[in-house]
Structures are given as C-alpha cells and as structure tokens.
C-alpha cells in the first residue's frame, strides 16, 4: 500500500516531465518559425519588451529535447545507448549557449543571429544552470547532494524572480543591471523546465521526500505550493493597493501581515488536522499489525507441533519453539539450514518426491517420514505442508508421530492377538463339534444295542432307563449343535439381499412345524420386505414360529399364532403373537440369554439357545427384539429391522 501510493506519485511526476518537455519543444519551435514577430498567445500583453532571441529559442528547444530523452531514470544496461550520449552532447550545448551569452552577449550576433535580441545575463545563467542540471541528472555526490537539484532550484528562483518582476511591475527583477531583460516566455519555460528536471528523478534527493507518503512528504506537498501561492498573491494585492492609493505603506504592511497570519493559521491548522487523522489511521493499522504479530508469536511459541516456513532452496526461514522439544534443535540453530539435512537417509528420496509435489501445488497431508534429532536419535514425523505461491515459501506443520505409531502398532498387535484367539476359538469349536459328539453317539449307540440285545432279560423299567440314557445323549447332541450354530453367528458375514418376508415365513413355517402334528392355526398378515441376510432371517422366523407353536400346543385346536408386520419410517416391525402358556414378565430379561429357560424340560423341550440366536441375528442387522407376555395368556415377540439394511453391524462378540 505504502509503495503503491509512492509509485503513483512517481508516475505522475514522470507524466509531468514528459508534458513539460513536449510543451517546451512545441513553444520554442513555434517561436523559431514565426520569429521575430510576437506570438500573442505565447507572450500575451506581458510581453513588454520583446520576444526571446534566437539563441534563447534554440536553447529552450534543445533543453526540451534533452529532457524528453532523459525523462526516465536509467535502468541498468539499457541506459548507455546512442540517445544517452546525444542527450549529454545537447546538455553541453545548452551550457555553452549560456556560457557564451554570459561572457559576451554580442557573440550571438557573430555566429549568424542577426537582428538578434541579445540574451540577458539572468537568461544566460539559466541556460548554464539548465545545462549542468541536465548533464548531472543522475549524479549524487558522496555527501548526498545532487547538482541537478541545486541547479534546478536556482533556475526556478531566477525564473520566478523574473515572473514576479513582470507581475509586480518591478523591472529590476527581470533585468540584471546593465544587461538585457529575460523575456516572460523564457521565464515561464525556464520555471517549467526547472520543475520538470526535479520531477525527472522523483525517487532521488529532495524529490524523494516530496513524493514520499510519510508525514514529512505530505506536509511538504501541501504547505509549499499553498504558502508560495498565498505569499505571492498577498504581496501583489498589497503592492497594487498601495499603488492605486487605497492605503498607505503602514496600513499596507499591517494588512499584509494580518492576512498572512490569518491564512497561515488556517493553513497550519488544516494541515495539523490532516496530520492527526493520518497518525490515528497509522496507529490503528499498527495496532492491528502488532496484534497479528503477537498472535503469530504466541502460536509460534506455544504450538506443540513444529510450525515452519521453508524457502525454495529447502532452507528453514522460520521455525516454532516446539522444534527444540521435538527435534532437539532450537529454532535459531535451524534457521538457514536445509530441512533435508535432518531427514533420515532412507527417507530422503521419498521426501524429495513429496516436496516436488507440494511445490507444484499439491499440499501434502499426513505424509510421514523420519528426522534425525540433534542427539542422533530418530523421530517419526507426520507432516502437513502446502506451498504458498505469493510468498514463495512452503509452510508446514510437523507432529511427533511416535505416539501415533505406537498406538497403531499396539492396535495391530491386539488385532493379531484377537485374530489368533479367534483361530483358537475356531479350532476349539471344531474339536467340540467333533470330539464331544462322538462319545454321545457311543452312549446312545450302546444303550440302543443293549436294549436290542438284552431281549427278555430286561424288564420294562430297565428298558425305560436305557431309553432315558439315549434321550439324554441325543439332547446333549442338539445342545452342542445349537451352541455351535450360535457361536458361528458372530463370525459369519452378512449377505444382504431384498428379502420377501412373506415367502420366508411360509418356508420357515414348514420347517418349524415339521415332525410334529401342527395343531395351531397360523395367520400370516402382509409383511414388508427388508434388506437382510435371508438365511439368517429364516432362522429367526423358524425359531420364533417353533416357539409359538410349541408353547400354544397345549390349547389344542384353539391354539392361534398370528404373524403381522408394518413399516415405521426407516424400520420394518414384525410380530409373532401366540395364545399359549405365556411367561411371567418378571423374567423377561432371562428370555434372550443362552441356556436360560422359563419352562421345565418335561413340559416343553428345548435347549435354551433359540431366542439367544434370534437376538444375535437381529442385532447384527442393526435391529432389536423384545417380548411381552402374561402367564397363561400368551406371548408376543416383536422385532424391528432397518428397511434399507445400512445400519452398522451390531455386536461382534
């Protein structure tokens, strides 16, 4: 912002210089063409004495051209071209014109300018000074003085004096004693050229201050022209008033001083107010800036991650304090070092590749490599880094990954352990299924063989014992089968398909009722379809329907099982209601636990696994199941399933 403001002033100075050069060249060319007549437009009624001489017209023309050629500051190598030398020669010519006119005004006539208006001493001096100024446009002495500037200011003063002379009608100001006058046109053009010389190098010397946006520059730009104009006007008014006899000298001086004080006061007050406003604005922006700096500092000092800025060559420019804790180096030790020097040798190539990616605009997030700490130990680091094109820097955040990797490793280990435990469990269930069933088969087999071969030696009671042995063995076989099925459920993966629940219930019903005479009346209502594992859901229906049929069996022909279903938002709800023996709601919690039964084995056969299987299947589908019942009146089992089937799987235990 600051630079931009200054730059725009510089641009305006450049434009002014160019305009002044063009104006000078045009006016003097026109003057030469119509010479020696008056050009009313150029000389106006102020042209009291005469038009400029030819030497002066030529001098102005050359000065204008020189200024045009040298109006822009040289930028390195391109400055020393033909035009540069041409401009230098022309500068020298201007100086010589002035010098010759100064030493002997009549020489101009000798070189062919007949009917010449001789050049006044002040005009001659102006040309000398202009020549020097144009020659030394880019010269600055060791003590910081600029000859061009001094020359231009002197020219401006001389020209201004002449102009004042014309306006105030004081001939001494434009005619140096025993010499010829400086004509008004020459005075105006000289002043213009003096200003243009100053503006040609706006970034140097006096002009640097005049074009700066500092308080000083602002003050200079405002006060200088304003006070010059004011003093000039007041002086003229005072003189004219006195000349016309409006007031005498005493009153004139008093009025002049009074007006001076009043206007100066106004001027200073106006400027002071502006300065104050500017200062306030600057303070506000400085406060904002310092707050941002403080926040930045706070972050850099307190971040647990290492924040850093790295330049194009991979060198640290800024590193936050956490570096000392994480890498063992203080920020001061790191600044200027290449980060690659810290990277573990095995990670160098990988890191360099990622850095190329980052610099081409793809930020890295979660890139992990290793650094060598100051003490030689290795630290794993998680990086997130991005390239800032405007700053040409890579900003990055580095986090010590030691803990994360330890946790990941621990997780991996426990996952491995779990997997191996699972394998053990699997082989355990395998041997259970194989080795526990064999003796049961033998018990049942030998009991049966004994019953067959015992013949007459066994009375009825002994036969019943043998039957009981066989029945117990077979029941235990079923128990093992159910238990295995139950444990397999948690390992089996779900295959989700669209399940036609009504067809599934029909099929499950035929299995649930198989082997036993179906006495109950089963009423199946319309059932919504869901996304679920058909084989597992079939198991659910089989178990629930078998239970309903079993527990309502004692009612004989009155036994009634109702199956209903409905959709409720994302969930589908199904109910199996029977009018059987029911259960005591006090024990409802035990219903879905493995091996928990609410009835005696004599009353109703069963292993106590069926409802546990139902609950596990439903929960793995992301649904839930519950039961309501009353002793002697029946039971209702309700389960809900997500229709879309997208709920996460339930327990994996």
């Amino acid at each position, binding site marked *: 912002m600051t630079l931009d403001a200054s730059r725009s002033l510089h641009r305006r100075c450049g434009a002014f210089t160019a305009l002044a050069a063009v104006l000078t060249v045009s006016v003097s060319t026109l003057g030469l063409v119509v010479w020696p007549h008056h050009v009313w437009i150029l000389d106006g009624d102020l042209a009291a004495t005469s038009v400029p001489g030819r030497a002066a017209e030529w001098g102005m023309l050359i000065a204008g051209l020189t200024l045009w050629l040298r109006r822009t500051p040289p930028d390195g190598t391109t400055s020393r071209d033909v035009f540069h030398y041409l401009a230098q020669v022309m500068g020298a010519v201007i100086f010589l014109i002035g010098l010759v006119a100064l030493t002997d005004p009549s020489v101009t006539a000798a070189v062919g300018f007949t009917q010449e208006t001789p050049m006044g001493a002040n005009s001659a001096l102006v040309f000398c000074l202009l020549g020097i100024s144009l020659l030394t446009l880019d010269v600055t002495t060791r003590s910081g003085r600029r000859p061009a500037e001094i020359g231009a200011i002197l020219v401006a003063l001389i020209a201004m004096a002449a102009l004042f002379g014309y306006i105030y009608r004081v001939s001494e100001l434009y005619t140096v004693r025993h010499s010829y006058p400086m004509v008004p046109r020459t005075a105006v053009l000289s002043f213009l050229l003096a200003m243009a010389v100053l503006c040609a190098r706006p970034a140097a010397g006096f002009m640097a201050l005049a074009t700066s946006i500092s308080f000083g520059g602002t003050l200079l730009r405002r006060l200088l022209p304003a006070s010059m104009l004011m003093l000039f006007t007041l002086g003229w008014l005072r003189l004219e008033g006195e000349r016309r006899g409006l007031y005498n000298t005493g009153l004139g001086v008093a009025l002049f001083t009074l007006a001076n004080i009043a206007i100066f006061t106004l001027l200073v007050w106006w400027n002071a107010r502006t300065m104050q406003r500017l200062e306030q604005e600057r303070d506000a922006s400085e406060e904002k800036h310092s707050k941002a700096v403080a926040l930045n500092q706070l972050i850099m000092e307190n971040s647990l991650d290492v924040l850093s800025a790295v330049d194009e060559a991979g060198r640290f420019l800024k590193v936050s304090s956490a570096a000392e804790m994480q890498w063992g180096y203080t920020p001061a030790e790191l600044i200027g070092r290449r980060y690659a020097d810290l990277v573990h040798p095995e990670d160098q190539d990988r890191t360099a590749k990622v850095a190329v990616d980052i610099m081409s605009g793809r930020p890295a997030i979660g890139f992990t490599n290793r650094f060598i700490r100051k003490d030689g130990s290795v630290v794993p680091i998680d990086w997130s880094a991005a390239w800032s094109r405007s700053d040409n820097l890579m900003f990055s955040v580095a986090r010590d990954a030691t803990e994360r990797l330890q946790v990941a490793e621990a997780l991996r280990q426990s996952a491995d352990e779990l997997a191996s435990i699972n394998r053990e469990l699997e082989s355990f269930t*395998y041997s259970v*299924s*194989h*080795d526990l*069933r*064999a003796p*049961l*088969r*033998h018990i*049942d*087999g*030998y*009991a*049966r*063989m004994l019953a067959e071969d015992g013949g007459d030696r066994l009375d009825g009671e002994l036969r019943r014992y043998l039957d009981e042995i*066989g029945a117990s*063995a*077979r029941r*235990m*076989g*079923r128990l093992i089968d159910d238990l*295995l099925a139950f444990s397999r459920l948690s390992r089996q993966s779900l295959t989700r398909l669209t399940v036609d629940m009504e067809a599934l219930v029909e099929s499950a019903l035929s299995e649930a009722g198989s082997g036993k005479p179906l006495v109950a009346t089963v009423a199946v209502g319309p059932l919504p379809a869901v996304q679920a594992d058909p084989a597992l859901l079939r198991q659910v229906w089989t178990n629930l329907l078998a239970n309903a049929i079993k527990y309502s069996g004692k009612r004989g022909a009155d036994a009634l099982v109702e199956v209903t279903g409905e959709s409720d938002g994302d969930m589908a709800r199904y109910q199996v209601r029977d009018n059987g023996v029911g259960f005591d709601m006090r024990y409802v919690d035990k219903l879905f636990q493995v091996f928990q039964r609410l009835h005696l084995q004599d009353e109703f056969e069963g292993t106590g696994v069926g409802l546990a299987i139902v609950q596990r299947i439903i929960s793995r589908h992301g649904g839930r199941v519950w039961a309501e019942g009353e002793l002697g009146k029946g039971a209702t089992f309700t389960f809900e399933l997500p229709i879309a089937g997208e709920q996460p799987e339930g327990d994996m235990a």
Partner: protein
Amino acid sequence: MNQQRVDILLVEDSVADAEMTLRTLKRQGVVNTVEWVRDGVEAIDYLFRESQFAAREPGMPKLVLLDLKMPRMDGLQVLARMRGDERTKAVPVVMMTSSREEGDVLASYELGVNSYVVKPVDFSEFAERVVQVGLYWMMANESIG
C-alpha cells in the same frame, strides 16, 4: 478271510464307532465281508498290500468307509493318496465324520470323495445312514462290475 473280494474297508480309529458300524452292516445283511483297520497308515498298507498286509489276497474293496479325524494319517491324506494312485483311483470312498465344518466338506470333495456322511448322535439315524451308504455303493458297484 475267504477267496472273495472284500466288500468294505472300514477305516475307523474309534473302537465304539467301528463296533457300531460293523454290527449295523452285518445285522442288516448289507455285506458279507468287512475289513476294519485302525488308522490311515494301516489303510494305505492294506490297500497297497504293504507291511502287515503284504500277504493279503489281491484285489480292491468295493467301498472304503473313511473316518476323517484319525491319528498318524487322517482321512483327507488317505483320500489324497488313493486318488493319486492308478490302482485306487476308481475305488468309491465315503467320508464319515462327526464334523459338520464346511472346510472339511469342501476339502473332501476337492480330493474326489464320492460321498460325505455326518455321523449323527442318534444311533438309529446313524444305523440308517450306514445302511443306506452301504447298500447304495454295493449296488452301484455291482451294476458297474
């Protein structure tokens, strides 16, 4: 042991299972001769007439009833050896086991088992299956032979 070809080779490490199987096969009159060996190694020796069976009459049984889990050499290994040898390649093998584990079923079928029977706990069911298997393969053999 008579001149006739042995009907069934029963490979079974469990004495009880073997006794129940032999009794069922004989009482139901399915077969006349059943040879019983105790594990996979003996089964291989018998089939290829090696060591203790070097002197047996030549000829292959009409059916091998093979238990899956056995000491020394299990049923799957015996099956693999049989299917890898020209002499025993075509002999029908029925795998009999207590296990319902899927892996075993698949492994057996991949090795070219002819049938796979899970031994139920219930003796009457067990007997029924043994008889069915025996009858089926005896008849199948006769129709081939």
